[in-house]
């Protein structure tokens, strides 16, 4: 606790961090090219992860760094590269001053409304935290975030994974008919002696261990399926970009199986809840922890494959049969 008006080092750090986040956000918006905007966005995501750490929300920080900044950054860079030929044309079509002014005013109003809610809270701020925490020991999951995500909010978590699958289908549907089921894009040129190839050989053994560890530790400490899956996906993307292994055909049976196994097992356990527990997505009390860990493991696999294929883009080659 800070005493009176004494200059608190943490407060100075937070204020500097907040100013930096705002500055980088403005920089990303006014950036001249799509590539510069993406670089700004990735920086913004990493700074935001630091903000979440300062708020003691390490689970959110890990997710923000891995997904919000990392994998999304890779997807956006690929999109910026695809859009480059059309960039000059779309820049000429940018909206007029009145429209941009209206957007700015609207955004400022939303920001002001949120700021008011934060600065003038109805004391004490309403919270379901204590009520949720009462039943958590029954699950024997030490990390309250994982417990809430897979118990109270299991339906949200399930739908979230299905949304990821739908997003991948959206990307795939950009491909012409003759490429359906084929491998994404063109193979990256392999440079067996390059720096990238070296990194793609050295880093994955470390990254895979870290990803599995993050998944496993998610039961008792910050971590979990999403963060672990994103790290595994990043390792796979690195290997594909370096050209060491080509992306698989999107129509392959093994790929399709890996894509759906996570949500399918989650759904199956949820339906089994009707028979062995109190209803949909309810766990039998004595098996709650092993079931949650099993769901997390298959979800991690599916998330890694979904994210890796999302970053690879739509199919661009005819399927080899």
């Amino acid at each position: 606790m800070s005493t009176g008006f004494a200059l608190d080092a943490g407060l100075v750090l937070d204020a500097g961090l907040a100013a930096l986040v705002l500055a980088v956000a403005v920089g990303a918006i006014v950036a001249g090219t799509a590539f510069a905007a993406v670089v700004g966005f990735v920086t913004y995501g990493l700074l935001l992860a630091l903000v979440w750490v300062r708020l003691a929300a390490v689970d959110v920080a890990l997710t923000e760094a891995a997904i919000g900044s990392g994998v999304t950054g890779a997807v956006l860079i690929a999109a910026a590269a695809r859009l480059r030929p059309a960039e000059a044309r779309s820049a000429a079509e940018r909206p007029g001053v009145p429209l941009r002014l209206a957007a700015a005013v609207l955004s400022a109003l939303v920001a002001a409304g949120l700021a008011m809610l934060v600065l003038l809270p109805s004391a004490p701020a309403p919270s379901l935290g204590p009520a949720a925490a009462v039943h958590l020991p029954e699950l024997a999951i030490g990390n309250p975030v994982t417990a809430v995500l897979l118990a109270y909010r299991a339906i949200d978590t399930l739908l979230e994974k299905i949304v990821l699958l739908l997003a991948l289908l959206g990307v795939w549907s950009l491909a012409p008919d003759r490429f359906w089921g084929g491998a994404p894009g063109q193979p990256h040129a392999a440079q067996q002696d390059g720096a990238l190839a070296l990194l793609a050989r050295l880093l994955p053994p470390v990254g895979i261990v870290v990803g599995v560890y993050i998944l496993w530790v998610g039961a008792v400490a910050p971590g979990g399926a999403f963060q672990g899956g994103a790290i595994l996906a990043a390792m796979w993307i690195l290997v594909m970009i370096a050209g060491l292994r080509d992306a698989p055909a999107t129509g392959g049976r093994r790929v399709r199986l890996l894509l759906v196994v996570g949500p399918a097992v989650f759904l199956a356990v949820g339906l089994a809840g009707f028979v062995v527990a109190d209803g949909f997505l309810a766990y039998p009390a004595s098996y709650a922890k092993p079931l949650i860990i099993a769901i997390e493991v298959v979800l991690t696999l599916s998330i890694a494959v979904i994210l890796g294929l999302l970053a690879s883009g739509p199919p661009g080659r005819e399927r080899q049969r």
Partner: protein
Amino acid sequence: MRQVLDIFTVAAVSAGALFFLVGTVGLLRFPDPLTRLHALTKADNLGLGLVVLGLLPQAEGFLAGVKLVAVWLLAQLAGATVTQLVARAVRRGGPPA
């Protein structure tokens, strides 16, 4: 003993911060991409290295220290690779428009 270690931490982390500052000034002031990369690597290698070295005596146990060193090594690996890639892109035809 505790005090000596604390003084060592402050000195090493300050020296690390100085390298970050110098690296940033170089990034902003140097004239072309290759010299700017040169400035950045100093912040990565020596700056982060000194900060990690300074934090080692404060680490809670042996494993936490190993994690700190691992962070430094991974940052080195990533930094060196990215520097190579950027430098290669510059040699091929300048930064992307």
